[in-house]
Every structure is written in C-alpha cells, then in structure tokens.
C-alpha cells in the first residue's frame, strides 16, 4: 500500500509548480531537496491543506486528501498531517503545556492532558510546562513543537527547514535529537531542506525539486553517487558541469571544457551535460606523458584558494570554462605549486547528466562550476 502519493500542479503568477512523488515504505523519511524558491514549502502547504493546488491528487494511507477531479479537498483539520514550521509556530500567549494540549488526541480532557504530559516527558520538557515559548531556548522550542505534533497523532509529519533558524554546534545537537525522534515515529515524513549534508544524514530517499518541477525520487546514497539530472548534480554539490553530447559509445564531448571524456556510467539518450566532482580528480605533473592516460585534461593553474580544510584550485581548460579541483592542503603543497597541471577524471567519476525541463535552472550550465 502506498503511504503517501502526491501528484499536483499549482500556478502562482509566473511560477508553476508540478510535483509528483510517493512515499512507499512505512517509516520512510523523504527529502524534498532544492534551492530557495523552488517550491518546496508550497508543496508541503498543499499536502497539509494550507494551500490549494490547481489540480492533481494527494492520497495518504488510502484516504484521499485532495482530488481536483473528484472535487475532494479536506480541510487541514481532517488531514492528520503534522507540520513543523520553520519558526516552529508555537502559540506565544500559551504555556508549553497549553501548546502541547492544544493539539493532543483524546476524547476527554483528562486523556488529552495525559497524552500531552507523555509527549512533554518524551521531549524532555519537564519543569518547563508553565513557561511561555519566548522563555525557551531554540532547541526547547523545537522539541515543544515536536511534542505538540506527536501528541496530535498524525499519520505523516512535514518538516520545513527545521534548522534554518539555528547555527553551528546547536544545530548539530538538534539534528541528532530530531533524527532520533523521526526514527521513532511510526508514520512517514517529508523533510524540506536546501542543505545536502543534512538530507544525506537524516533521510532515506530524496526528490530533487528544480524550479517547481520534481525529479524522480531516488535513494540518498544514489543521489550523491550518481545523480541523473543536472539539478540533482548541482544540489548534491557537484562543482563542475559542462554542456555535453554523446560522441560514440561511452564517450562524452564536453563543450565547455574542450575535451572528450570516457565514462563508465550508462549514457542516457538525451544527455545534455557532464559533471565531475571537484575532489574526484587525480593529478599529474605537466611533464608526465599525459597522452597515455585516459581522460587527462591539460590545464593551467588560474587561481589557488586556501580554504578551511582544503585547497581549491581553479584550472583553465582547453575550453571556455575552468575546472574546480579540491584536494588536501598537504597534497597540493607536495605538487610544488605548479603553473600547469593535468587533471585526470577516472571514467567512473564522469557523470552523464540530463537537464530536466526546458529553460530555467543552470541552463547556462558551465558557469555554475
């Protein structure tokens, strides 16, 4: 049985949203990953019933929440979908206890109070019951919001960038906590984020959203190992992309880099781009017999940037666009600061990409590198 099935469209001025995905596993945590303004939050609001899609269907555990053809549009109150807002949306004039009781499931006041007390204890908020949200730390506020959601017995939890208001160490702590809470939740979850590391650590599957359009859902490890689309490659942190076309079996002519590279990955029919991650290159000195090595790209060093824990090298290619190469500081020092450099991309690291849709994101492609 499908746990959650979403297939909706919505127009907002010149922006159009067309999202389609499904959560199939009972405890699946699915990420909606994409840059700001790609329609992630709007998608969550449509699932929760806060916004109304123009057309499509939303089905949760066999219950139709929305169906434009059948004219079904359940109000948010009847959807049983928990929503963790970016700002947590705790009721500012109520205490922690009142906030959690507000949504608590149960038919009598006593049952609801007991349920709220249980979730307050589970979220380690004992002793803070009579505090107002403004008196809580950021972490306590988030736990309070989670307690309120869990007490309402939702079938699905939606999380909208839960860590965007926090930074550094605190964020890491909260991520560990929230991860445990979500793992203990019996239903599914949709996790909206623009942070690929967070998604990699917290989610099982990921659906990349690019200018309002969703790519096919894939496992998180799959997304990072072999992204299929340009948008997925960019959001998964691939720093080098070039326009490309097939030039024979397993060969990609990369226009922006001025080279033809061999790939060991399957090349799809409509390939439009190639991508190489910045830390996957191998280096050769310019004096080596580079012709003998497969996928060797002769470069001149344009710029060396000393970053926090690595060295970033911008290398001019035979084409119009430089490559970004990242390595350990010691490794770069060992090369002796050369003016010319041969970057080698092993065939397994050359990713054939398809730019989904027309116009919009990264169509200028290579300039993203």
């Amino acid at each position, binding site marked *: 049985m499908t746990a959650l099935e979403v297939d909706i469209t919505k127009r907002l001025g010149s922006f159009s949203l067309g999202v389609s995905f499904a959560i199939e596993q009972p405890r699946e945590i699915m990420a909606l990953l994409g840059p700001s303004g790609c329609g992630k939050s709007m998608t969550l*609001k449509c699932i929760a019933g806060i916004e109304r899609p123009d057309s499509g269907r939303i089905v949760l555990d066999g219950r139709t929440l929305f169906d434009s053809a059948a004219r079904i549009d359940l109000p948010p*109150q009847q959807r049983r979908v928990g929503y963790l807002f970016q*700002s947590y*949306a705790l*009721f500012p004039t*109520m205490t922690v206890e009142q906030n959690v009781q507000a949504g608590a499931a149960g038919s009598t006041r006593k049952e609801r109070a007991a349920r709220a007390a249980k979730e307050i204890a589970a979220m380690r908020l004992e002793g803070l019951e009579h505090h*107002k949200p403004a008196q809580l730390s950021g972490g306590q506020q988030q736990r309070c919001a989670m307690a309120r959601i869990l007490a309402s017995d939702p079938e699905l939890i939606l999380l909208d960038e839960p860590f965007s208001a926090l930074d550094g160490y605190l964020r890491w702590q909260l991520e560990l906590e929230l991860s445990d809470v979500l793992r203990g939740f019996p239903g599914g979850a949709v996790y909206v984020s623009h942070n690929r590391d967070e998604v990699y650590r917290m989610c099982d599957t990921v659906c990349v959203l690019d200018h309002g359009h969703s790519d096919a859902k894939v496992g998180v490890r799959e997304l990072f190992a072999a992204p299929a689309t340009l948008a997925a490659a960019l959001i998964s942190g691939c720093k080098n992309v070039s326009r490309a076309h097939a030039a024979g079996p397993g060969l990609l002519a990369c226009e922006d880099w001025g080279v033809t590279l061999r790939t060991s990955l399957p090349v799809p029919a409509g390939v439009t781009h190639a991508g190489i991650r910045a830390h996957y290159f191998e280096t050769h000195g310019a004096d080596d017999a580079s012709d003998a090595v497969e996928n060797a790209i002769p470069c001149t060093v344009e710029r060396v940037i000393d970053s926090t824990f690595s060295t970033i090298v911008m290398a001019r290619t035979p084409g119009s666009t430089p490559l970004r190469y990242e390595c350990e500081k010691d490794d770069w020092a060992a090369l002796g600061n050369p003016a010319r450099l041969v970057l080698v991309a092993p065939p397994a690291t050359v990713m054939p990409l398809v730019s989904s849709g027309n116009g919009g994101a990264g169509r200028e492609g290579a300039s993203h590198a």
Partner: protein
Amino acid sequence: MDWYPLLNSLRIAAISTVVVYLLGIWLADVVARAPRVVKGILDVVLTLPLVLPPTVVGYLLLVLLGPRRPIGAWVMATFGVRLTMTWYSAIFATVVVSFPLMYRTARGAFESFDQSLADAGRTLGKSNAWVFWLVKMPACRQGIIAGSVLAFARALGEYGATSMVAGYTPGSTATVSTTVYQLWRTGEDGLAFQWVLVNLAISAVVLLAMNMLEARSRSARTREVAA
C-alpha cells in the same frame, strides 16, 4: 449640577464601543485576508468616516434613518420605534464615526499576525473559531485594546453627527459635548466650564489607562524574553 448628560454619554459610548469592537474585528479580519482589489475598495469605504466631516455623516444618517426615510419609515411601521431624536439615536452617529479607529488598528494588528500560527492550529485539528479567539486575538490583543480605547474616547467626544441625529433635549438626548455647546450658546459660561472640566478629566483618564496598558504589556514582553 444635573449629571444626566454624563450618564447618557457614558452609556452611548459603552454600547457603541461594543458594537464597533465586534464590527471592527470582523471587518478587519475580512479585509486583511481579502484579495488586493477588494481590499483596496473596502478599505476606502470603511475608513471614509474618519475623514468625512461629522456633519456629512449626520446628514447621511438622517437621510437613511429619518422617520420619512426608507429605513426609518420601515422600522417605524414594523416595530413602532423612532430612530432619530432619541437618546439611542446618538449610538448610530458614534458607531459610524468611531468605527474606522477600531477597524484600522485591528487591521494593522491582523496584518502583522504570523499566519503560520493559524496554520499550525488548523493542522493540529483546531477549528477556525478556536484559532481566531484563542490564538489570533490574544496575539493581536495590543492593537485590539488600543483600538477599543480610541473608539470609546472618540464616541464619548462625538458632537457633530450626534447633534444632527439626536439633537439636544435636556434630560433625554443631552450628552456632555452637546451640553457644553448649549450652555455656551445660552450664556451660562460657568456651568459650561464645569462640563469642560468633566470632559478633560474623562479624556485624561482614558489616555492614562491606555498608556498603562501599553506599558504593562511591554514589561510583560521584556520579562518573557529576559527569563
């Protein structure tokens, strides 16, 4: 000194404030959520009494409510009740004149209200009425209280429209403001001055109460944040 004008003014202002409170928050909520064009038109119509001369408001009310005018004649025929030149006629005048003060302050408060709070309530299964009265209104209470106090003060001091719709009959339609004018006109300066003092005292008390309310909610906020 006959205290009837003061009692009459206070009951008119009190009743009018209750009416304006309910009408004001209802329409403020409607307008705050309305689409842009509707919002623009409604806002102009609802704010108009604030800039119109009270005599124009009085004229329009007489045109509608007078005993031989459409609404007035119908009410007279149906209920046998006269709408003009009675003590409660002034309520029509004060409601119209003080309404924009309530409406505008409430609308400002509603527009700065964080909509995700209402959305959170609804996804938790709470009714729209619950969300409105237990989340939105408490969150906007400052603006609502300020609007009510201003509307009350304005109703208490209303003169122009009141004198046209209710007139001045001692012991019946006389209010503090119409009494001051009547006494001045008839040369009873001393008595007029006493009523001026009463008026000043009431206004000062109202403004003081408002400032105290504001200070209290401000210190409550700082306490919450500091703790």
